[in-house]
């Protein structure tokens, strides 16, 4: 595989981590990371949705919006595509894999409002990626999201609220943990092959 394509995946996942660096997908990152199993399931669903959404958005943009000069409609079109995709994934999972569907519960529709999905589609447009690059960028980003949320879930499983000073309990300590994770991930900055 072309080196620059690998770089797109690595950059999306680690160097410009979508959560710890670009601050997309924070709401579910902070909320869902309470439970490890939910985090893994959400991560998997996100990878699926973002990769396909990036592909579809890329096609729509290049073959419909740009030729018609309607680039300004991209936000609406993208978000509708994402909403539709999530619906499809939901219906698909309900029929083919009810156990996974049950374990994901309310997190699945949540992906629609996950800033990361829309953010990736818009960034792809901004970077002028072609179709393959869009798909890989989406995939890399989603993998990065999954890595971040799973790591945070692991860390949170170790945090015992009773040990934390009272004002820090709940959101603040999770954000401090995220800050430390973000510091660690800055080690990937500037990495290039």
């Amino acid at each position, binding site marked *: 595989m072309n080196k620059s394509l690998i770089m797109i995946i690595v950059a999306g996942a680690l160097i410009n981590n979508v959560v710890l660096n670009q601050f997309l997908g924070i709401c579910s990152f902070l909320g869902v990371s309470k439970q*490890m*199993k939910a985090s893994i399931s959400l991560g998997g669903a996100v990878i699926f949705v973002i990769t396909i959404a990036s592909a579809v958005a890329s096609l729509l943009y290049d073959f419909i919006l740009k030729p018609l000069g309607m680039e*300004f*409609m991209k936000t*609406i079109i993208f978000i*509708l595509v994402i909403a539709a995709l999530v619906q499809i994934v939901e219906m698909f999972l*309900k*029929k083919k*894999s*009810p*156990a996974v*569907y*049950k374990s994901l519960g309310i997190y699945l529709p949540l992906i629609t409002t996950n800033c990361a999905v829309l953010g990736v589609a818009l960034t792809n447009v*901004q*970077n*002028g990626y072609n179709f393959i690059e869009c798909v890989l960028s989406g995939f890399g980003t989603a993998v990065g999201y999954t890595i971040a949320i*799973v*790591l945070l879930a*692991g*860390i949170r*499983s*170790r*945090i*015992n609220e009773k*040990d*934390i*000073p009272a004002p*820090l309990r709940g959101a603040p*300590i999770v954000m*401090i*943990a995220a*800050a*430390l*994770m973000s*510091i*660690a*991930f*800055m*080690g*990937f*900055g*500037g*990495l*290039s*092959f």
Partner: protein
Amino acid sequence: MDAGMMNLSSAPHVRDKWTTPFIMRVVFLSLMPATIVGCVVYGWHAAAIVAVSIVAAVLSEWLFNKIAHKPSTIWDGSAVVTGLLLALSLSPSLPLYIPIIGSVFAIVVAKCCFGGLGKNFINPALAGRCFLLISFGRIMNTFAVDGISSATPTANLAAGKAVNLTSMFLGTSNAVIGSSILALLVGGLVLWSMDIIHGQICFSVLGGFTLFIALFGGQGFDPTYLAAQLCGGGVVMGAFFMATDYVTSPVSRLGQFIYGCTIGVLGGLFRLYGSAADSFSYSVIIGNLLTPLIDTYIVEKPFAYRKNALRGLDPDSRKPRYKRIPKPVIALTVIAAIAGVALSGVYSMTKDTIEAQKEAAKLESYKVVAARADSFRAIEKAEEMISGSHENGVYGSGFGRVKINAVYEAVDEAGNPIGTVMSITSSDGFDGDVTIALGLDADGKVTGIAFTELHETPGMGMRADEESFKGQFGGQDSVLTLVKGEAKNDGEIAAITGASITSTAVTNAVSAGIHFYQNVIKGAN
């Protein structure tokens, strides 16, 4: 709760007769050789850094416990060890507020906020060090001996220069305070023989690192090169004293091995392909992030997951498909259509203003770079020259994804040409496109650059807009090379520390402009 009594929590795992204070004392003593060598070699200031760091650590822990109404834990010695470890990883020439800030962050944020010893998930000393690296990048990278700063051996190695292996081993080279490999090994091996640290961790870290460097470093298994890589950049210190911290490393033997190898490999990866020579600290704390996962999955059995266990139990899936198509789709389509019409309206209203805005901004920047010009006129066949020289929307080769947008002749009041201005975009910026206006005088020398589009990171890439960087381009008239550190020769541009991507994008854009001028515009005349 007396820290000297038996500890019933899950981590750290304290052996029967050995209490936390005892272990901390042994670790402290094992670091003494390196500390003493460091202070002797680097002088009083180094000793001051060590002292200040330890005191700050102990004081902040004491103060935090007091404010949080918790029992005082400073007597377990862990704050002292954290302070010492942090100091040993710092350059001996830092101003004293740096170790203070680092220690306070390490103790308060990385450790106390989570509940104190045994409850943190990240190595406090390294968290503090990385905090300092990000906050004070330039200062942290200054290593001065007798007031003259020069590169560390590791930085030299990365640049391909020769290093003095003996001086690195003894600790007399230009590096951090705790850089005497000999002294560190003495302490580390003592700890290992007393079974206070696990061999699985330190040796798999060293092994993983060495293997990666051997495979990808370009010099194969050359022992001198490998030794030089190992002796620099905090690898030995990290392997023996940081990665092995009980609290932040996995419990199981297999887990420790995986953890150690990961740290070693990451260390090698960052050393060879990263932008900073000083990145081993990051490898260890990334390893720390993995510890909870390793402990969850390596010790216990994986989840027993039976596929399709609940298939057929969901009543909804048995409804025929056509009954599930919602009628309100019509309502949704109507709303979407109205929205589309409204948007087109606003778009057509604002489109011209937006275009005019962009043109005005470009004109502004042209004026900046060609101050004496009265107006700008189109060059004959400019459009053809531009499109002819671009392939797939990119100009030339070796300038990255760069595009010449427009080129004009700058003329004075009398209509005489006094130079050229160009608008150039590089898509290789860190955060999107970087667009510059480049001005050239009648001899093809750069008069200046101005940014019409720059969305880089504030404090780093955005500093390209400062005179100290922009000003370097004045007077240049050939394709430029970017260098780290200082630009000594003509045609060299010093990159912004920590913003190599932005610096490269800007330099490439300027080079492309100069190249275009020399080959396409002048060539046509």
